[in-house]
């Protein structure tokens, strides 16, 4: 089973949710329609950290497997996030671990 357009749209929607952990930053998703894609720009503290395109006009089962690569995550885990089996907190934590979201310097560093 691949990562489909339906999963991609669910991902874009879920990235907007507020994390439970107050220490984690909230992500802002700004869609931009350009050409054959809707580019979803993900901002964290005013900095664009990741961007992915969803083809508009494609059927709902069309493969969008490249989005997992943009997030540096396995397609299976990306589906888990889209299907709400992975929390937004876990996703933000992962994005910090792989360096997509810059980790704020700790006090004393």
């Amino acid at each position, binding site marked *: *089973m*691949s990562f489909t357009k339906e999963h991609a749209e669910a991902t874009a929607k879920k990235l907007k949710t507020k994390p439970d952990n107050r220490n984690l930053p909230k992500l802002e998703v700004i869609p931009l329609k350009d050409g054959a894609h809707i580019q979803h720009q993900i901002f964290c503290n005013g900095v*664009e950290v990741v961007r992915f395109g969803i083809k508009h006009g494609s059927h709902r*089962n069309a493969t969008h*497997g490249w989005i997992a690569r*943009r997030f540096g995550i396995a397609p299976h885990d990306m589906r888990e996030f889209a299907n709400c089996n992975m929390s937004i907190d876990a996703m933000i934590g992962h994005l910090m671990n792989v360096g997509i979201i810059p980790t704020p310097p700790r006090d004393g560093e």
Partner: protein
Amino acid sequence: MAKSLGTGVNRIEHFLVRDVKVVKDGAKKTSGHIVGTSSATSGTNPFLIDESSLQRTNSSLAETVKILAQQVASRISAYCTFMVTLGRDDIEVTNPIPVTIEPDGGGYIASFMDANIASGGDTVQDAFESLQDILASSFCIAEQRSEGELGPRLLREKRILMEFLCRSPKNTPKRQPKS
């Protein structure tokens, strides 16, 4: 000359003979080259073929070809090609972009691995054109952002895109009319 194609659906004995006799409406006719089937266990003359048998053979062969085509398609792994244009007037490709195309979930994904940009489609051509579109879109967004507005991954992506793409001169210099 006989050749066996084991496909899992039907075992077909496929042979090519010259001057084989075909039975049609009780009359014997002679034809040139015929592709037909025979049953090794039937004990009948393998060179006598009726029309219904030929039709069954045709449908079996069509089925076999379809299965073999699916098997070949499923064995195609990723391959690489180069993109030399985005199909737009306003953006030029300064260096050929290496593009990897691979099957994924019934469709294809075309990727520019260096920049980690990819897109997909139902066919290879669709995936390739989709990548052209998203590269142009990413380039347009990236050139509007300053380096401070981009995270580490997108900053790297912007630098790579700038190596491979550039804006076309909007207005070509007009020639001065000769006096």
